[in-house]
């Protein structure tokens, strides 16, 4: 049986959803961003158990095709205007149906996780682990090559005081 992977046809839905969940800002350079976002999204999706992958895909299709059930006319979610899309997302997030709320929570978690794992977003929020990592690796080398290891033990400080 062929393994179910993340279908390209769903990319516009996630693109629209990401725009609603985390609207882009001027200081975020978007060049090449979407391609990397979908690459990572696909990697996470492909690791999920088969039953979740099937459920997820059909859930997304339902989410995309049936704004009509929530009073948004015969448009697909990915074709809605930004304002309507936002209202539609609110209806899923805060609606009465627990199944919809839970599904949306999963959907939101996946988008947010992948979005905020993008190095370009890290730059915007001020997270720069690469340099920190290099510094710490150097620091460890220095300590191991003869420096003294000072253990932080507050009880000692108290005793000394």
């Amino acid at each position, binding site marked *: 049986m062929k393994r179910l992977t993340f279908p390209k046809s769903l990319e516009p839905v996630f693109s629209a959803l990401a725009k609603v*969940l985390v609207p882009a800002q001027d200081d975020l350079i978007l060049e090449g961003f979407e391609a990397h976002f979908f690459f990572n999204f696909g990697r996470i999706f492909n690791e999920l158990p088969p039953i979740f992958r099937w459920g997820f895909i059909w859930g997304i299709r339902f989410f995309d095709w049936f704004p009509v059930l929530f009073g948004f006319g015969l448009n697909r979610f990915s074709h809605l205007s930004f304002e309507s899309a936002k209202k539609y*997302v609110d209806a899923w997030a805060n609606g009465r149906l627990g199944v919809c709320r839970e599904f949306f929570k999963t959907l939101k978690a996946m988008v947010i996780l992948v979005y905020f794992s993008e190095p370009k977003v890290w730059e915007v929020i*001020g997270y720069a682990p690469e340099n920190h990592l290099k510094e710490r690796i150097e620091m460890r080398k220095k300590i191991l090559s003869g420096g003294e290891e000072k253990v932080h033990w507050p009880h000692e400080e108290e005793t000394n005081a």
Partner: protein
Amino acid sequence: MIIDSGQVTKNIDETCDVVVVGSGAGGSVMAKELAERGLSVILIEEGGYHTVESFNNTDTINSLVNLYRNAGGTFLAGKPNVMYAEGCCVGGSTTINGGMCWRTPDKILKRWQWEFGLTDLTPKKMEPFHHRVEEIISVKPVLQESMNNDSMILKRGADKLGYQTRANLRNHNTCVGANQCITGCPTGGKQPPLVTYIPAFLKAGGKLITHCRVKKIRLKNRRATGVKGVMIDPVTKAVRAKVKIRSKITIVCCGAVQTPALLMRSGIRSASGALGNNLFIHPNTKVLGVFDEPIYGWKGVNQAYQITEFIDEGIIMGVNFIPPGIFALAFPFYGGGFLNTMKEIFNHSVCGAALIEDTSRGRVINLPFDQVVTTYQLNARDFELAKRATALLAEIYFAAGAKRVYLPFRNLHEINSIDEVRKIYTTQLKPIDLELMSVHIMGTCRMGINSQQSVVNPSGELHDVKGLFVADASLFPSSIGVNPQQTIMALATRSAFLISENISRYMI
């Protein structure tokens, strides 16, 4: 010797003394201790073998895909659903944990003695096993150089309120606080089994098979005779070869979800009816505190302190940095301003969690095609405890100078002063409104002397199947209220000693 699915061209058919399934806290210890006693041991791991050098990048998604089961997308169904994380790589969850080391609390051991007849598990009798583990994985306090602001802020708040804190003991050798513990330590400072027990196991002549999923335990006349499994391609997930291992002793160490699932899949039933039941999870509530001062939680060690003032009530608290992708999940909101909010607070916030010693129970259920579902229902006592833990953590943040605290409740997201902490009690909250997560899954094959009450005997062997042992957190008869890594390792050391003392019984 390491065999990976990438190298395999034909089916594997091997014979050995001991086969160990799972290379985490329990499996790695068992494999090393038994291999060093001259037994031929094969260690099987479903995930891949990733070296410290391979962690020298900061790609969160890469780590989730390579090191976590289902890329971290595992959850317990219930009200509320609870996300949980477990490792799926050589070293198991020890490769991706914060490295906190606690000996089993005396009160827990006493409870196990009374309720489950585990009279050999006294603090005194467990001492040599804990000591051995502590030496091998270098358990000690954190270094001064690695201290970071978020831990100091937590301590500042706790000190102001007169709450007791504990400078954490961690398994490290010159950890300098790269703070990438949960995505694999890139400096080699953390000393999980990946860099301690596994190399010693390989040196002792052990054989490690990676990317191998065990499907069934082979049984003959109520005796385990090995395992059957498949080698899996890590990318396509296609089956590359079949694996058959014949052994005298079989040890299952796949964690509290996968271990009972594998036993049940193999047709094993426990007379006690406890197999797969009594799942405990140490529910965690995540609470974010926002401060005016810059904090940079990612610069420094993970959880230098824990607040232990409420340990007798079943609550311990700590702060730990989590990468932005996971950090952002703590916010209930979305839309315009989300990115700006993250920009404003990311380097000014402290992310803390309160761990609860739970009494709620969950269950592991097998589905067709090797799929597993886990359920967990938070009871009223634990819900109240979760609320109290959240309130206490919020109070500590405000005492330390927080200007805003984000809470894990759907209908109470944010409070802005210490006076508003009371809202946690006055707002109408239901368990389903609570966001929980877990990283400590325990107790589905509990240990005890009575086969009508427990799944395995005090040495870790199944009451109902000879030559079949369990050595992971599923052994725990109850929730233990502290980080379980060291307890699992000490119990596995003890089991390995008992097996080697009585080896003639199994070498038939």
